[in-house]
Every structure is written in C-alpha cells, then in structure tokens.
C-alpha cells in the first residue's frame, strides 16, 4: 500500500542515537514488542487456521523488529561514556545491574519495569475480539508505515537500515489489516456491529502517536495528515464513519500505562524474573 500521494514532512535528517535518542529507540522497540506479544495471544485461537497463521506471522515480524531495535539500543548503551549512561539510567533495568555483564537485548525486553516501557497505549490494549485486533493493527500499521518512511531518512544508518528492512513487512501488515477492516465493516450485521464497537473502544487511543514526546526525533505531528487520509480511504470502502477527533488518551510514551500492561509484562517476564539470567 505504498502511498504515492504521501509527501513526507521535514526535520530529517535527525541526530544519531546517542543518549538523547536512546529513549526513542526503546519507544520504537517497545511498540513492536508489546503489540507483537498481544497478537501472539491469538496463537491457536484464531478464527480460522489461515488467519491464526497470519496474525502470528505478523507477531513474529514485530518481535523481530523489536529484537533489532533492542539489540541496537544495547550496543549503543555499552559504548556510552559515564555521562551518557547516567542520562539514561532511569530506563535501564535494575535487575541487570547485578549481573555484572554488558547489557543485552533480552535484558531490555524482559527486565524493565512497567514505568520504563515507552510504548503507545494502543499497542498494549487487550486483544479483544477479532474486530478489535484487526482494527488496532490497521491503526498501528498505518502509523508505523509513515513513521518508518521518515526513519529511513535518518542520518543514523543503523536506524534507517532497520526502518528499510521493517517497512516491507509493515506494508504487508497494513494491507492485510485494511482488508479485514473493509471485510468486517462491509460484511454482515454482526461483523459490522463488532467493528463499530471496536472503533468506539480504540479511537481515543489513536491520537497519542501524533503527540510528540521530548525524545522523539521525527516530527510525528506532521504524520497525522497522511494517517487520517489513509484511514479515511479505508473507512470509505468499509462504509465506516470517521469519528470526529476528540479527546485522546495519552501517557504511554512517558511510561504511564493502562492497567493492562502490567498483566502483559507479568506473563511475558515471568521466567526471566523467576530464574534471573538463566539461559537454555
């Protein structure tokens, strides 16, 4: 779904991921990991075998993206001087400090506390029913598509390489989820009721992506126009009404989360916290 009308905003190239941009890399990684973990909950529970496989493949792509980003963040951190390390200390997992070894990707994924996670609230919401899952994926993938398009222009060559790699997958996710939104919106009475309910649940969580956090090095507010346009196009096909922008819920980017994230982390981090630094 390469949008040929999309005119990227300015502000690139932005500075490489030294201490200032470190939180931004975590934010990108957390987005991918948390929505990937949520989608993985469908494994064995999808509405049809093909769709079970589709959503878990998407989950795998997202966790793969998270790995590349955590890996990069860990490598950067290990190369920081003491001032830089101090500057990002609030984001580093406390448990890891007792390990007496370099920081690794898994430490960032499995040992940070809830308040150290910087993902969008949209990513952590429960998977809900199939309508809620595919609509969330559509909102998220559409955002990620424009965000990674910008990131590809980064002067930080590792970040731009990760974006270049990931956007090919994101394009598939966006297409798949958009088709599902249309199928449900323009489907049966029940599917339409479900997608409409999902829209009611999710809409107020979509605005957060476009409210810049201090660490954000791309102008996310400038991506909103393209995102809305994409959503409007798909909604027109799906015969869904674009809600009027209204109040939106935010906080995830600053580490203030919904009650849902804690449960997700408890499930995901259980093993690493019970058997610290174990490998198998």
């Amino acid at each position: 779904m390469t949008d040929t009308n999309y005119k990227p905003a300015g502000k690139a190239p932005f500075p490489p991921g030294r201490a200032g941009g470190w939180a931004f890399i975590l934010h990108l990684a957390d987005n991918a990991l948390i929505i990937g973990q949520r989608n993985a909950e469908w494994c064995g529970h999808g509405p049809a075998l093909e769709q079970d496989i589709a959503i878990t493949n998407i989950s795998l792509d997202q966790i793969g993206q998270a790995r590349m980003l955590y890996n990069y963040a860990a490598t950067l951190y290990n190369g920081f001087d003491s001032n830089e390390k101090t500057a990002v200390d609030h984001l580093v997992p406390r448990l890891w400090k007792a390990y007496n070894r370099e920081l690794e990707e898994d430490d960032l994924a499995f040992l940070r506390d809830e308040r150290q996670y910087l993902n969008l609230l949209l990513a952590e919401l429960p998977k809900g029913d199939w309508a809620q899952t595919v609509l969330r994926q559509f909102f998220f993938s559409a955002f990620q598509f424009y965000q990674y398009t910008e990131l590809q222009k980064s002067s930080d060559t590792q970040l731009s390489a990760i974006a270049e790699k990931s956007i090919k997958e994101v394009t598939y996710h966006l297409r798949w989820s958009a088709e599902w939104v249309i199928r449900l919106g323009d489907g049966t009475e029940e599917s339409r009721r479900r997608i409409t309910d999902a829209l009611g649940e999710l809409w107020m969580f979509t605005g957060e992506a476009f409210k810049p956090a201090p660490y954000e090095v791309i102008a996310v507010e400038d991506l909103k126009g393209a995102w809305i346009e994409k959503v409007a196009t798909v909604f027109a096909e799906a015969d869904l009404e674009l809600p009027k922008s209204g109040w939106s819920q935010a906080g995830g980017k600053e580490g203030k989360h919904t009650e849902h994230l804690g449960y997700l982390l408890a499930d995901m981090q259980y093993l690493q916290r019970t058997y610290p630094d174990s490998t198998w």
Partner: protein
Amino acid sequence: MVSDAEIWKLLEDVKDPEVPVLSILDLGIVRAVTTEGEQIKITITPTYSGCPAMDVISMDIRLKLIEKGYRNVAIQQQLSPAWTTDWMTTEGKAKLKAFGIAPPNPKQQVCADDLFSEEAIECPRCHSYHTELISQFASTACKAMYRCLDCKEAFDYFKCH
C-alpha cells in the same frame, strides 16, 4: 591460506532450514565473503526481521566450515540494503517450483500492494494460471497460500518481497 572462492563453494551446501531444496546462495542472503589469512568473514542479511531460520543458518554456516577445518569464522548480519526476492537465483526459482512451491514473481512486475489485488500465480503442479489466493500468510512469513482452480491442489507461493 583460504580463498574466497573455496568458501563460496562450501556455502552452496548450506541449506535454508525451512525450504531445504534452496541453498543460502540460491536464496540470495549471503552478501559478502572476505578472507584475510586464516580469518573468514561472512556477511548475511535476514529475509524477514523475525525469521527464526537466521540463527540456525548462522550456526549451519559455522558447522559446515568447521567440518572443513575452518575455525576462524566471523558471521555478521547486515540489514541494508534489505533483502528482496529479486536476489533469489534463477536456479533457486527452478528448484522451488520443482519442490511444489510457486517461485516469487519479479518484484517490478507485480509486487502488488493495492487492497484485494491478486498476483497471477502459476500452479507449480499443472502450470495453470487459474489460481486464487487463500491467505497472505502461510506456513512461514515468506509464503502465501494459494489454491489451483484447475487441479484443485492448494500450494505455497514464495511471495515477492
């Protein structure tokens, strides 16, 4: 002293663990081989970000080289330029088809990303183009699932990327 050509030759024997008819050279994921004295450096690029085969492939490369007495091996992953199915060799595409998996179409031709559009995919069994998409995603992220409307068989399509 070891030559680059020797190493390339050995890599032909390292297979994709998920599609074992393809070597990693057929797949186009080996980007560079450099040798300096006893030191061998191999650069590979992942097919998909979350592809679980990548770790296995790195290990298989190592094992293959150790088997031939090469122990000083460094394998690095390079993300950019991102892998594309256009890097798959013609020979690789022929092997895929013989194995029953429809090979990827050339990217510039039909790598469609419009909603609900379907690529024309040839059935690897009866060669009919009278086929339809069942699912964008199949047994692995790199494949889609199709059905042949003539011979009625379902088949995997190694989708263009």
